[in-house]
């Protein structure tokens, strides 16, 4: 079942919160995972794997490096569902 962009952002915020404790209201589209949210690459990977399961998509290793902001991740996940 495809999620809307809003659902993807909310779902991603939930996963970020579970992994790092960062509150959902901090998670906005323009935020960079490393620079703004201070999420390290290992936590990032855990979030990616959990997102694959939550949204039923595949996020390959070499794609992860391109997802530097929340917006890029949301866009990728939304498109991958199509």
């Amino acid at each position: 079942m495809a999620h809307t962009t809003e659902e993807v952002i909310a779902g991603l915020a939930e996963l970020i919160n579970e992994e790092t404790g960062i509150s959902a209201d901090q998670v906005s589209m323009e935020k960079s995972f490393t620079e703004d949210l201070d999420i390290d690459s290992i936590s990032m990977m855990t979030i990616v794997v959990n997102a694959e399961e939550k949204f039923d998509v595949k996020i390959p290793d070499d794609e992860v490096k391109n997802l530097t902001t929340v917006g890029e991740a949301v866009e990728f996940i939304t498109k991958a569902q199509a």
Partner: protein
Amino acid sequence: MSPLAQSHGAQFTRILSLGAARGDLVVSNDDIAEPIDSSDEWIRQRTGIIERRRSSDAEQAIDLAVRASSEAIEKAGIAPGQIGAVIVATISNSVQTPSLAALLADRVGATPAAAYDISAACAGYTYGIAQADALIRSGTAEYVLVVGAEKLSDFAKPTDRSISFLLGDGAGAAIVGPSDTIGIGPTLWGSDGSKWDSVGMDRPLKEAFDDPEGEFPTLRQDGQVVFRWAVWEMAKVATEALEKSGVTAEELTAFVPHQANMRIIDEFAKQLGLPESVLIARDIATTGNTSAASIPLAMHRLLEEHPEASGGLALQIGFGAGLVYGAQVVTLP
């Protein structure tokens, strides 16, 4: 014409004893943080490492191997001459040939045992245990000395932020021998060469040699690729190893994964759903990541801290450059 004779060995095998040797230097996070523009706090948070052991120039991988092996042989209560095969899992042989194992066999008095090195990175010790089990049950050897021995500091680049600050030096040894009861469960092992580039040396030896200003090759990794594989793919391998052994997570006394990174250990244990009762080896905190030596070192330490665990079941799993992996459920010596 007479048929060929077939060898047969003991029906069962077990790890009789363990020996450990860690590098003579204690290297703190502060000692190595500056060249990687980091801090003690960052390293602890990122890896769980408080300090690591490294060897001074006075100590080579062979010396660590001899120390660990001597302890294991003594504790097994066998004469070194009874050892039929010496297997050293290592990437730290300073020459391509002859093997560290041949030298080790000579140094511990195991000559004329068969002797060879295994190159299976951080899965090397589990590969060695798998082979020891098979050699004994087939009657090819009665006792086997399996050693993981590494001087990784020789291949650590001080300015590398991907892996070098994790690395430590050490050796862990096991004497595997015949047993009245099953002491080593079925081995689950394999490879994924599609990820050959994700961890290993940064350049071939010849390239470094041909480049007049070149440095000796050092280790590096793509941490994210390795992390994902080490946790989620290895959780599947671990689960299958338990199933094949007929053992549930609840029946385990201990979980001894390769000590790659505390974050991997934590997430791995979470994925396996291990009950609170299972002891988890966390030797990396003060030893560092010693590749092939990490599992026997971690198991040795776990038993020192929890002697009551002896005789219980442990799931050991190694995984690393190749990518390769190996897992078995074993009875703790």
